[in-house]
């Protein structure tokens, strides 16, 4: 699913020179894996997630996404991949304000073919148990509900890869558990999940852990599964 070879990303920070956010990172993630990325802040987690999510392009290296070499892709092609093959879930939900839940969920459809399909959006909301809240605005929903709307939005185009950046960071324990329960279901359906978190409880849902420090992967290990001892996929 994801094949990263010698991936590097450097930013210019004005007079401080280049910042090497990622240095020669290589790994593979097979279809259907549930991987957690961990590391201190500034270790390159977010940069990695942006590159994998096709929001950013690497300075050097190769990135094969589902067999497509996307490292040299242009804006439009990257946008298409984000739209159809990747679902993003953020810590702060990032729903559009003053826009109803269902309209938020429909947003990716606007960039798919411009045909807004109410039924599909409603089905996605149903999936996260919020069909009854379709007409509510984000500020009328609890944090957990907002995150579930965001998950419905991530799911509407049935992407193979879900990228979740601290999805439970702004939620209480119960709401966090609900969200992780949904992610677990998505994993069971065969979707690949890449999760960034600081939370040990949350990390335990994953089967494999990548640990980053100073832009390099310093550890890549299989985690004991919840009730399943066999990890799917695994390190190279």
């Amino acid at each position: 699913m994801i094949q990263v070879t010698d991936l590097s990303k450097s930013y210019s920070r004005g007079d401080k020179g280049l910042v090497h956010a990622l240095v020669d990172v290589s790994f593979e993630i097979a279809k259907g894996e549930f991987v957690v990325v961990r590391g201190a802040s500034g270790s390159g987690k977010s940069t990695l997630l942006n590159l994998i999510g096709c929001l950013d392009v690497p300075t050097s290296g190769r990135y094969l996404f589902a067999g497509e070499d996307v490292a040299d892709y242009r804006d439009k092609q990257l946008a298409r991949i984000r739209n159809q093959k990747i679902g993003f879930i953020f810590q702060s939900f990032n729903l559009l304000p003053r826009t109803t839940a269902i309209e938020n969920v429909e947003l990716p459809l606007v960039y798919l073919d411009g045909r807004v399909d109410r039924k599909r959006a409603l089905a996605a909301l149903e999936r996260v148990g919020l069909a009854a809240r379709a007409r509510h605005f984000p500020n009328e929903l609890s944090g957990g509900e907002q995150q579930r709307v965001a998950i419905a939005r991530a799911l509407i185009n049935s992407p193979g890869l879900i990228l979740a950046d601290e999805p439970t960071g702004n939620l209480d324990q119960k709401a966090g558990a609900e969200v992780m329960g949904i992610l677990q279901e998505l994993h069971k359906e065969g979707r690949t999940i890449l999760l960034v978190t600081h939370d040990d409880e949350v990390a335990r849902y994953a089967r494999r852990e990548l640990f980053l420090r100073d832009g390099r992967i310093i550890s890549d290990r299989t985690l004991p599964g919840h009730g399943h001892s066999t990890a799917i996929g695994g390190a190279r």
Partner: protein
Amino acid sequence: MKIHALISQATRVTRRYPLRSTLMTGGVLIGIASLALLTSVGEATKHLTMQRFKNMIGTFDTLMVRPGGAKSRGMPTLVNVPPTLRFDDAQAIAQLPEIKSVAEMQSAFDIDIKYRDKTASPGVFGVSPNWLALRSDELAEGNFFTEEQNSALARVAVIGTDVRSALFPEEDPLGKTIRIAEVPFQVIGILQSRGAGPAGGSLDNVILIPVSTASRRLFNRDYLTMLIAQLRDPNQADIVTSEVQTLLRYRHSIRPPELDDFTVTNPRATMARVTQAGNTLSRILTGVSVLALLIGGAVIMGLMSIAVSERRNEVGVRRSVGASQSDIVVQFMFEALFVALMGGLGGVAIGCGAVLLGARMRMMPANLLWQPFAQGIVLSLVIGLLCGIYPAWKASRIDPIQAIRF
């Protein structure tokens, strides 16, 4: 993005920020409304002025000569006539080869007209029998007087429609005898209505009688209020004007540096001057409206640029769910276009309403022309397009990684 998706996104954004949308729409709306209104009124007024001018002058292949120097521009006045233009002047002008014919006119405005118990005080005009043809006037009923009647000082009269309704509300005036300053005249014809003159007054409150009868039996005058000389070739108006001037200066023994005691007017030139003034006015008004439109455009551009900064997160989110940079450009351009068009349509509606209302309250002519409104809508689209460019470009430059709150 497909067009209907663009429209639904734009309407949502417009509803999401009602105050901002109202402000953005407002500038264009005021601009378009005033542009449409002013252009409509300007055009209609110009049209009306030309129409009235034409009503008064009749034909354009003529020169008008009236006594007295040219102290004021525009229309000749018909009262306070200096005694400097005479019948023999008219005959001399008629001898010029370029002149087809000459019509003489004397007038008086303080004469009472009576028919039984009814009275009226129209303008009384003594005119030569060719008057009707030179003014391209028409008779509604009856006949005009002939050369013979003129020579014979016949007491016959042709009346305008205002006089008819004042003196003969229920009777057929033809053949009836009216008294003009106690002199009996027989009504032999009725003029067709001419409508309003340049100042807005009626041109139908008139009585025409033979000029010789007027001169000898009524006014006791041998000088003219005006004469109209018809040209053989209307394109020679300027040359013939100076010929007539030379002739009259010679006949009146005027030598430089003395000034003319008469005035020759070329209706075509006067007309051109009147329309010119109307044009200038229209242009100034249009300029003011365009300025208002530009301000409206600047408001859109400014508010949208601010909105782009406030909507960084939205742009980031849209990019993350699959919007390309060009999708963002198109979205913001379309929003600007949409808002401007809403303003344009609103302005057209208000402008239309104002024209109709003004016409209804009889404050202005009711000509509802489509051009200013089409112009307004096209202009608002252009403004939306131009003013959307910068905000759209700015929005597309937003880096989604920095715009999304992780």
